């Protein structure tokens, strides 16, 4: 083999093993799942590999599914908003800290990201229960007289998911803050701009791409979250992921569960790709 030819085929040899594994274990199973969503299913006959639109018609026409998907996206939007409102100022504060403090605080911010979601959600279940610390504290302060219901409510799920996903927002915003030239901020201040003017006219426009890409990540992860909604939301407050789980492992209606999963995947891919396009077109100059 000549040198040029080996240089040309080298990347394929190098990436070949990983490529084969991914074709076999990502493309084929996902394709099979899409197919499965068009199969028939009956209580007694099980899965019948005959083409039918039954599952898809059921999902589109039954208002139960609409309700679950609506709840899923409502929770995701609220979580995304909460992450923006808390994460952006926090990232800014982190960025202004001295390097020593910052690395300690970064451990606090990113650390929970690596702790099992199950353990973190358990913490929220303990805090948010009707006898939990949050309710006890609020009652001791005299702010409320009867315990607030957090468990098995959307509010509880939103709180827990915000905690789980906010590190992603902070990391995204922080990455864009690091590219910021502090001299521009100083220049604005020396020209007489106040704190809020600097924020609005100088800092915000430059970190918006970071905020948006963080928002996309948070939204996508919130919409497909499973463990936190399952533990905090309980068996009744279903989201798309827990609904698919139920169809697969309790009802055993795999084709219907597959249809729910495929719909979630398609909806998310459309939202992610669409908003990525939007972000890149709108802020193309910032990414240069």
């Amino acid at each position, binding site marked *: 083999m000549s040198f040029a030819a080996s240089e040309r085929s080298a990347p394929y040899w190098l990436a070949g093993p990983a*490529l084969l594994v991914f074709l076999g274990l990502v493309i084929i199973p*996902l394709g099979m799942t899409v197919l499965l969503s068009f199969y028939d299913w009956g209580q007694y006959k099980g899965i019948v590999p005959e083409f039918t639109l039954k599952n898809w018609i059921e999902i589109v026409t039954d208002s139960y599914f609409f309700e679950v998907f609506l709840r899923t996206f409502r929770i995701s939007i609220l979580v995304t908003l909460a992450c923006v409102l808390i994460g952006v100022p*926090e990232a800014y504060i982190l960025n202004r800290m001295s390097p020593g403090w910052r690395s300690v605080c*970064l451990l606090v911010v990113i650390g929970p990201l690596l702790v099992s979601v199950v353990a973190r959600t358990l913490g929220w279940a303990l805090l948010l229960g009707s006898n939990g610390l949050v309710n006890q504290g609020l009652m001791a302060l005299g702010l409320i007289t009867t315990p607030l219901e957090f468990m098995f409510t959307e509010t509880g799920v939103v709180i827990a998911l915000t905690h789980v996903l906010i590190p992603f927002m902070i990391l995204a915003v922080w990455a864009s803050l690091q590219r910021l030239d502090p001299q521009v901020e100083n220049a604005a201040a020396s020209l007489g701009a106040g704190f809020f003017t600097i924020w609005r006219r100088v800092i915000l426009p430059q970190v918006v791409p970071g905020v948006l890409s963080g928002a996309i990540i948070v939204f996508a992860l919130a919409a*497909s979250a499973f463990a936190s909604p399952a533990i905090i939301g309980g068996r009744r407050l279903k989201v798309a992921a827990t609904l698919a789980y139920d169809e697969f492992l309790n009802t055993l209606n795999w084709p219907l569960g597959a249809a729910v*999963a495929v719909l*979630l995947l398609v909806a998310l891919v459309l939202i992610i790709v669409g908003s990525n396009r939007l972000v890149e077109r709108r802020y193309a100059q910032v990414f240069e």
Partner: protein
Amino acid sequence: MKRNGALALVFHLAFVVFMLAPLAIVCIVAFTPEGYLSLPTRGPSLRWFKAIFGYPEFLRAFYDSLWLAALSSTIAIGLAVPAALAIARYRFPGREAMTALFMSPLMVPHVVLGIAFLRFFTQIGLSGTFTGLVLSHVIVILPFALRLVLAASYGIDRRIEHAAISLGADTMTAFRRVTLPLILPGVVSGWLLAAINSFDEVTMTVFIASPATVTLPVRMFLYIQDNIDPLIAAVSACLIALTAGLLLVLDRLYGLDRLFVGSGKG
């Protein structure tokens, strides 16, 4: 650079409390001497930590999880290193598509992957096996390994490698003696991050785990679905302590900010 104002520090303090409160409460409740969920007002007790040893299913799940994490992250890094070198060094048709495919497990919801693997493994007779768990974990953790190795590979000077080859080293020797040591920090951190992600994965694993092969997070999740008691708090507290230890190692080894923020490109 200007300092943070008092208001900013109050906000920051509230945020730190928000981040740590759920982890702290788990660790505190785990030390309760009572038979029910409560704060250890009568002084801490190790009762529930000892109780873990009475539940062999948690211990077995822990060992299975460790094995799974070690095995799948080793395979993932084995696939990721050559793939990263290919992506970092060559411009070839399909490069973008291939990178997107390797990163796709980050975008595809884990529920969907879990369902896809359950269906696939049932068809090919791997359902409920440890092999199935390993294969599926390799897929979901490969993006983490790839990203870090990729970041390390972009930074190295290829002339050093060329020098080695011109001095008579063959390709393998050049890789082993020159390239690998240069990208080693990325490889080690990639392996560790992949292992942590494998160890923590619950959403996908809950679909493909069987009673015979179940990971610790899945076992904990199934337990919590039935009831929440101090025992599960003690198990979680152990997990939190373990992760905190690993986190410090990772921070020393690679720097957390670099690990998470600078991981896009070079």
